[in-house]
């Protein structure tokens, strides 16, 4: 109990410590230099309508690559941690899923995939992008897993797609380095007319790759958590 009390005291002190963040930092009414440049020059420089996408894919592209890497190593790491299967591996009798779920998912899965693809290909135009699209792809896969409890995902295929999309990402980055201003510069393709699907340089391509890679990585994580490799 004493320990709880001390912890409470500490946390209260911590809250007090954070106080200047609330008290001293008021709401801004102005953009700072960096943001100002992104929203004013961004559309012209990169041709993307969604400026968050412009920041994610190009201006702070290295972060995004890093983020992809984080997901990648999380997937690898989880597989690595779970490399030894549980001691007693009884094939637990899985309940087969209901008819409704199965027919429903047969119908839904293609739609979800389509929707996911839409989201990440239109990341430069509308809200959403690679991550969100990738998650939608994952949900399609999840639905598949739920409706077909016996089936195993084609692991080979997801892994190959994942690796290849990762390499493509890097290649596009290098193209930016060689053909444009720097690594991950998306301007080595024509900017095109703003608002079109094929515009904003390489942003849609990068975001699509991200979408696919994120999708595959998340599927990998879920798959590893669901079943263990034997």
């Amino acid at each position, binding site marked *: 109990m004493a320990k709880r009390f001390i912890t409470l005291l500490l946390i209260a002190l911590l809250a007090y410590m954070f106080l200047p963040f609330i008290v001293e930092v008021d709401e801004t009414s102005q953009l700072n230099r960096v943001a100002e440049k992104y929203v004013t020059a961004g559309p012209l420089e990169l041709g993307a309508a*969604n400026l*968050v*996408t412009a920041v994610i894919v190009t201006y702070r592209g290295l972060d995004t690559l890093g983020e992809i890497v984080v997901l990648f190593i999380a997937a690898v790491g989880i597989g690595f941690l779970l490399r030894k299967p*549980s*001691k*007693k591996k*009884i094939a*637990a009798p899985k309940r087969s899923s209901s008819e409704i779920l199965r027919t429903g998912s047969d119908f839904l899965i293609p739609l979800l995939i389509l929707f996911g693809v839409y989201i990440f290909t239109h990341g430069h135009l509308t*809200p*959403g*992008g690679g*991550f*969100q699209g990738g*998650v*939608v792809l*994952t*949900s399609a896969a*999840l639905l598949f897993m739920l409706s077909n409890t016996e089936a195993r995902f084609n692991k080979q295929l997801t892994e190959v797609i994942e690796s290849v999309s990762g390499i493509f990402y890097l290649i596009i980055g290098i193209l930016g380095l060689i053909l444009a201003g720097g690594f991950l510069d998306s301007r080595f393709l024509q900017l095109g007319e703003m608002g079109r699907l094929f515009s904003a340089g390489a942003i849609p391509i990068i975001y699509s790759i991200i979408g696919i890679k994120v999708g595959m990585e*998340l599927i990998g*994580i*879920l798959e590893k*958590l*669901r079943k263990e490799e034997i």
Partner: protein
Amino acid sequence: MSLIIIIFLGIIMIAAAVLALYLKNLVAAIISAGVISLLASVLYLFLAAPDVAMTEAAIGSGLTTIVFLLAFNKIRSDRED
């Protein structure tokens, strides 16, 4: 108007957070934590950040909850062995 909604949502979120920590039933606690993220994604709309709202809804509340449940399921099946 929006302020009232925000405060209302905020109170629910805090309540959900406390519930998530103190519910005995772990599945309920996990879902309760998912609710926080879901409501947070609503708040992001107020903050004019639709991208974040989508992500938080999909990843923060959706996927994270699923990962929690899968892991918990794994632990439960280990316990039964």
